[in-house]
Structure formats: C-alpha cells, structure tokens
C-alpha cells in the first residue's frame, strides 16, 4: 500500500465533511461550518481552502463552479466533490485509525458526545 494513501488529520475531517454535505452542498462555508460544529474547534476558511487544494492535487476531490445565484450581486461558488480514490483514501485512513484505537479505553463510543 503506497504511503501516499494515508491522509492527515485535517484532510480526513475535510473529506468527511464533504461526504456528509453531499454532492451539491459542499463548498467553503458549509465545509468550514460542518467541521467547526462537529469538532467544536475553530476552523479558518484559509485552512479549508489550502487543504482542499492539496486534496485536489492528490486527485481525491474535484472542484466544480456553480452558476451565479440568481440574485443581484449573486456569486458563483467553488464546490468540492469527492472522487473514487478520495473515498478509498478516506476509508483506508479511518480504518487504520480504528484498528489502532480498537479496544483502547479512551471513553470513545460510536457516535458518542465529547
């Protein structure tokens, strides 16, 4: 298994957020908010964009630009969609993490609260 398939922590968070938000819902604002709400830690929009760019370079996601909103001053948004290799990398990285944590008493429950 090539080493490059493993993701950094923030990369995992970003890819998971995109998966959660679905095909049409994932762009800067929603990705940032999703991570911030679920992890309860401050996330900067710049960090999200930097990570998105890195993931796109690795081929784990692709961008598509939405049509401008049909209101005055409406803008186009840069959406992210996860690719098949991206989904695979996410699965591999989280699986490795799960195996490492399996059986450890860290107070973790599936879907548990912090």
């Amino acid at each position, binding site marked *: 298994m090539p080493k490059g398939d493993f993701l950094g922590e923030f990369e995992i968070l970003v890819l998971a957020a995109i998966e959660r938000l679905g095909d049409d819902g994932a762009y800067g604002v929603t990705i940032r908010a999703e991570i911030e709400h679920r992890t309860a830690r401050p996330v900067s929009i*710049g960090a999200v*964009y930097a990570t998105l760019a890195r993931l796109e370079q690795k081929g784990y996601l692709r961008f598509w630009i939405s049509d401008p909103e049909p209101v005055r001053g409406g803008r186009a948004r840069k959406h992210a969609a996860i690719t098949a290799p991206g989904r695979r990398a996410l699965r591999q990285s989280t699986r490795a993490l799960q195996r490492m944590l399996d059986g450890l008493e860290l107070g973790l429950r599936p879907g548990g609260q912090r």
Partner: protein
Amino acid sequence: MTAERPASPALARRLVALVAPRAERAFVIGDMEEEFAERVRTHGASAARRWYWKQTMASLTPLARMRLRSTDRERGREWRGDPMWRDVIDDLRYAVRVGRRNPLLSAAVTATMVLGIAVTTAVFTVVNGVLLRPLPFPHSERVVRIGVILRNGVQSNGMAWPDLQDYKRDQGMLVLLGAAVAAVLLIASGNIANLLLGHSQARSREFAVRSALGGSQGRIRRQLLTESVLLSLAGGGLGMALAPLVTRMLIALYPGGLPRVGEVHIDATVLAAALAATAAARAVVAATGASAMDSSCRRSRSRSRCSSRRVC
C-alpha cells in the same frame, strides 16, 4: 425596504485579497462575505466584524503557504505580466533562499558593506559640508582669505605673489582626502570580494549542475547579478540609514574644531556619492560571481556550455 447592510472590515478583506492565490481570491472572500452576512443577522454587526477579523488572521498563513506551494506551471498561468519579470521574481526568490542558506556569509557581507558605506558617506558628508560646498556668496569659489604668520608671531594680512602660487598648488590636498575616503570603500569592497569568492568557489558545482540542466550562461549570470543587487541594496540601504549617526560621531570627535559644522548635513550630492559607492561595491560583487562561474565552467569540462569567448 432593505436597510443599510453592515459592511465587512475593508482592511481585513484587502489582506485576504493580497495573500490568497489569485485563482482562489474571489471564492475565499465570497465565502467569508456570505458567512459574515449570516452572522450579522444571528450575532449582530460588531460580533460579525470580530469574527471576520479572526477568520482573516487565522487564514493568512494557510493561504500564503497555499500560494507558495503552487507549482511553477500554475504560477506561470497566474502570471499576466511580462515574462521577463517572472524570471526576475524567480531569481529574487532564489537569491533570498541562497542568502538564508548561508546566514553567516550574508551577515558578514552585509555588515562589511554597511560599515564601509556608512563610514564613507559620513566622511564625505563632513568633507562636503566643511570644504566642498560653496559659501553662500555669488562666485564663492573666488573668495579667499590669505594671511601669513611670521616667525616672530606677527600676523600679516598681505603675502608675496610667489607664496600665493605655492598655496594654490596645495589645494590638491582636498583631492587627496577624497582619495582616502575612496580607499576606505575599496578596502571594504575587497573584503566583500574575498568573502564571496570563497562562497562562489563552493557553489561552482551548483552552476555546473544548472548549466548541465540547460540553464544558459546568461540566465546564471543574471541570477548572480540579482543576488549581488539584493546584497548591495541591503548593505547600501542600511549603510545610508546608519550614515547620519556616524556623521554625528565624527563631528563630536572635533568639538568646536570644525568650521561650518552647522552646514554639515546629508544632501543630494552626498546621497549620489553614496549611491555611486554602493554601485561600485555591487560591481565588485558581480564581477566576483562571474569569475567564479567561469572557473566552474573551466572545471566542468563541458566546453560546449561555456561561452566561446573565454578559454574554458
């Protein structure tokens, strides 16, 4: 119906626009504006503004890294100006890296240059103010006061014509003083040249690799020129900044001993002289680099890569 909508902080917005990669700029700011408008509704305008600033400060570093990471190809696509300037910017970036890789050398060269130029500028400032600058009279170069002190201590206001001719010859003294000042700078330049020569010898491999990879001699030469310009700008700038201090120290060494001290200040003439001095120092640095490159050329045995005008 729509009330005046609170605007996001313009300075923060401009910071983001400045740092973000060109291709991402509109999207990043658009996202921030969208969430800002939402927060104005939910949290109030001042809380939203605080949030905007926090986002900006936390985003600058990742955005800047993102911009630096973008590959040459992407930079090339992003670049809209003259390709010549892209080379210049690449050269500058590389020059900064070389400087950072050898911090001791950079510091030594800059310090030598700063001292040399500060002292030269200061001495020239004093010489210029005390001796060279014309008195505030029309045709002041013709104003002369000549007196004679006889051996028995008696002062006489007149003097014999042949004596006057002798004194006129002695005016060459001023030129000598100027030469001494120039010598100070020459010594500084020599030291810098020595330092850089050693450094360039160590880099000859780098030049050889670069030309082996297809870098033209002109391109390498330009790289060296950029490095030397950067060094001399740093040295020259700091030196000139330090010059007023050294000037004051010089004047303090002669309390009341210098005529026209009140008129001593750094002016356009002095600045031009300092700039010339910097340029001279720069020329030395550039020449050193070029000679090192040629020596690397000679060693690399790749005759075809070396300029045909030289015996490689």
